Structure formats: C-alpha cells, structure tokens
C-alpha cells in the first residue's frame, strides 16, 4: 500500500468519525498537525487509533495519545507496520 493510499484511508476515517472538523479532515495532508490542524483531543486520537487498527488490521503497540504530532507520523507508523 502506498503512502497516498494510506492517507486516503486516514482521510476517510477522520471524515467518518470527526463530524466537527470534516472540512479540515477532507483537506488534511501529511503535514497536518493532529491537535491544532485537525482538532484531535487525546480521546479523539485514541479513537482514531482504534479505527485505524480495524481498517488496516494492524495493532498499535504502547502508543500514547500525544506520541504522534502530524498525520505523517501516523502514516510512517502504519507503513512500518504493514511491511
């Protein structure tokens, strides 16, 4: 799976779950900051992790709500897990 495909899927996850920031989610890029640009709280971040685990069939190990700064960090993690 390419990075672009991963971002597409992440965008879909965000649009589905984060109904308050759909415009920001639709326009998100690898540089988007999870807290300031996408408005994700710590609970929102973990909720996204759960959705990613189900979508990509991977398991996040010992990850905290503040461990990822940008969407690109999340893509890096997923990419490494999918290898």
């Amino acid at each position, binding site marked *: 799976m390419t990075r672009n495909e991963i971002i597409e899927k992440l965008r879909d996850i965000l649009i589905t779950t984060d109904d308050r920031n759909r415009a920001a989610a639709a326009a998100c890029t690898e540089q988007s900051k999870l807290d300031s640009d996408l408005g994700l709280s710590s*609970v929102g971040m973990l909720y996204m992790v759960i959705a990613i685990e189900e979508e990509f069939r991977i398991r996040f190990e*010992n990850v905290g709500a503040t461990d990822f700064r940008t969407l690109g960090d999340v893509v890096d993690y997923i990419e490494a897990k999918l290898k």
Partner: protein
Amino acid sequence: MNRQKPEKLPLFSKDNLIYDFTKITAGLPGLLWLRPKWLYESKAARKRLRGGHLVIANHAGFFDPIYVMIAVWYRRHRFICGKEFFESKAGRLFRAFHCIPVDRGNFRIDTLRQISDALQAGAIVSLFPEGHVNDGSGEMATFKSGMVLMALQGKAPIVPVYVLPPKPRYRRLRLVIGEPIDIIARYGSRPSFSKIDEIAVMLQEKEERLKELAEADLH
C-alpha cells in the same frame, strides 16, 4: 442490557487475598462509622450488577474509592488511578487491589486495552471522570470523555454513582445509584466525536440528578 456473562471468580483466591481481607476487616467498623444509606434512581437501579460494568462517581475527597466500594459492596472493583500512585510507597497496595494505572498526561492505547479486557472479562472497573478531586465547593468538575471510549471498547454499561460524603462527620454517608446506561444500545458501537462529547455531558447531567436525589434526602 449487559453483553457479558457474569463474572465467575472464586469466593476466595490468593490474588484477591489483600483486597478481601481489607474489605472484611474494615467493613464492619466502616459501616458503623459511616452508616451508609443507599438511594436508588429507580427500580431498575436496584438490580444487582452482574458482569462487566464501568462505575463512575463524583470525586470530592480521597476516601471516595472506599465510598464507591461500599456503594457496590457485593463486587470487587478495579479502580483506574494515576500511575504516580503506583510509584509511591503505597504502590504495593494499589497493585494488590488490582488498580489500573493510567498516564494522565499521555493516555495510552495499552491502558485502554487493559481496561476493555477487564470489562469484557466481566469485572467492575471504577473511575472518577472528573480526573481529580474537585475543588470541594460541591460543584463537579467537567467530566472527561475517556470513560465513553472505555465503555465502548469494553462493551459494558456505565453505572453512575453519586457520593454525598459524611460532612459534618455525624451525618450518614449517602450513596445514590443510577440506572446502568448501555451507550452502545443508545448510540451504536462507533459514535462520532461530537456524540462522544454529548454522552459525557449526558452522564454529567445524570450525576447532577443523582446529586439532587441525595440532597433531597437530607431534608
């Protein structure tokens, strides 16, 4: 309402020795001292809890975990508490009581898994959604929405409990038990972020209603 099978734990086990010993030895003096009065929101709230439930309560003082244990006295509780307590001198006690440590500055997915596993295994997990002892004014601090995520992942109903501490000391401890709220049945297994916040607000409003019941009983 509850999806889990009842918790099947032995009456006595080495794992729960300290918990049960403390409960038994402190129980009678505690009951005599506090003279707890149980109040119920409705007939449905009187039903004993079987299987996994997430018990939430207001947090007005350091004795609240004891009061919550008295509120649902017939079950063992696993409290969620800050990991710093585990690093203190009392850390062994927290471990013996099977408390679940949480990093309040950086809530971790593994902690969420530990909580949801406990709930799915049929345990009672208890927490104070204000996140800390409130300012003592009688007003509750804003509930954090993490509890909703725990209940969703653990597929367990949430049971609100309101504790009216015995202040002044001669007053009886009042414990108001609310009806279990099955949020998956009400909102589905994957509510949106704004729904999660709405659920947290709804639970706080429920606690406010339980508080009114407790205060009405004083008069």
